[in-house]
């Protein structure tokens, strides 16, 4: 099993945390992982793009050239990263900020209004967890309790208060997908 994910968004949209937590959970689950910011921001703002690979085999190139999954949080990031898609890719769009541009023959696309959902929960940044909830519901890459444990470890001290809202966001993402797309069983 190898899952190659591209995460794209603005600097502040929490994709770094998303990827790191996912990697952490996968590692604890005994998998090989590698995660990196392919394009950081010495200049603030701008698009950030993260490559995540989870595998049961040794990971050679840490660079994702063709994504099994692309998760895009905003329009410019989405446009810049469409080339990562190939037939059978999974595409998750934060539909609050992304307008789908194509019909994508052979690509599974889900649109989740993650920013809106997070905004409703009172914290725009939690949009990352909304996407995570949706993503994992489809791919079942890791177990949610393990993930939540990692989240708890990360949100310590002053940030502990954020745990609940993030957890909620995760659930909302999952829920949204279930309801909007009537998904039942994991696809992998």
């Amino acid at each position, binding site marked *: 099993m190898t899952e190659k994910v591209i995460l794209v968004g603005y600097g502040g949209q929490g994709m770094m945390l998303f990827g790191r937590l996912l990697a952490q959970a996968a590692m604890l689950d*005994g998998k090989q992982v590698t*995660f*990196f910011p392919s*394009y*950081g921001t010495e200049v603030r703002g701008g698009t950030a793009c993260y490559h995540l690979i989870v595998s049961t085999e040794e990971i050679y*190139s840490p660079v994702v*050239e063709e994504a099994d999954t692309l998760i895009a949080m905003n329009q410019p990031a989405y446009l810049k990263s469409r080339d990562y898609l190939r037939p059978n890719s999974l595409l998750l769009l934060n539909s609050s900020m992304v307008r789908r541009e194509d019909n994508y023959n052979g690509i599974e696309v889900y649109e989740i209004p993650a920013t809106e959902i997070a905004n409703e929960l009172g914290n725009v940044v939690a949009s990352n967890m909304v996407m995570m909830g949706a993503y994992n519901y489809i791919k079942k890459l890791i177990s949610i309790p393990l993930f939540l444990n990692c989240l708890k470890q990360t949100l310590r001290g002053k940030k502990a208060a954020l745990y609940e809202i993030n957890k909620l966001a995760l659930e909302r993402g999952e829920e949204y997908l279930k309801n909007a797309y009537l998904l039942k069983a994991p696809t992998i």
Partner: protein
Amino acid sequence: MSNKHLMTGNEAAAEAAIQAGCRYYYGYPITPQNELMNHMAMRMPQVGGTFIQAESEIAAIYMAYGSAAAGARVMTSSSSPGISLKQEGISYLAGSELPCVIVNVQRGGPGLGDISPSQADYFQAVKGGGHGDYHTLVLAPSSVQELADLVYDAFDLADRYRNPVMVLGDAQLGQMVEPVEFSRPPRTYFPKKKWAITGAEGRPRNIIKSFYPVKGELEEFNLYLQRKYQKIEEKEVRYEEINTYYSEIALVAYGTCARICKEVIRKASPLGYRIGLLRPISLWPFPKEALRNLSERVKAFLVIEMSAGQMVEDVRLSVLGRCPVHFYGRTGGGVPSSKAVLEKVLEIIPTVSAGPLEMAEMGLPPKVD
């Protein structure tokens, strides 16, 4: 499993230094090596060590010079522009025979450039960006785990040879998050450094210097250095060879590029292509012998770098025309894709049977795609 830590390469390098007994770190912020420095800022006080955010890269390398002269294990780190500023200091360290570990998390140049990954400081690291006939040992890891391991080793090598050692990473290695295990015991015992300046209580005094003003002395010292370097070249070559035994084409790549090459090999294998990889781990000393030997077996080399063509010169110097040496590089922050490398390999394959000494590209400036 439980002693695996998920860390950036930068953090792993810092932690490995601490495990190796480094208690003195001097640095100056620069992306993409900041996590290294930040980790040191947090950890050094915990282990009773010294962390100073110096006023500049130059001050940092000379603080390191001081601690090295005083007999301690010491490290400094930066990224390309900051490493350029340290060149005088590195030459001084080599000239004063001081052990010191220097990490360069390379980014795109020249000038301010960018913060994307690069291997375009190879020449600077390996040929000597500073003045004079000196060498630093240069180690090039290709995973977070290996980065940690080589930093650990770097301290031993530095002490063994009284020589600066550079660990040459890149933005990708530095910022990449992978599991890492610190399996070796933290170093607590270190060989005595009789030459160090510690206060001359009860012994003749020691002097640390690189100044040899008496005619002939500097040459004598340089000849001694050359003998030392020769010994290092004999003993400290490190490389990894994969699949080369049955291959007609050998890839040559280090660091991040080497991992991409492994991906290429994996992709090419089901297609029936026999491709090997020679991955230099020590860039200086360079695995000349291994390449020379390999040049008797393979029909062509393909060197992959994130530069306009730097290590390829050392490959050519090792192979010396025995078979063609091709080059594929990305510069200015570009990272070669396994797909592009594979294409390049497929391009070369038909030429391989044409005869070993036809080297269309050689002597010409490297082609950068």
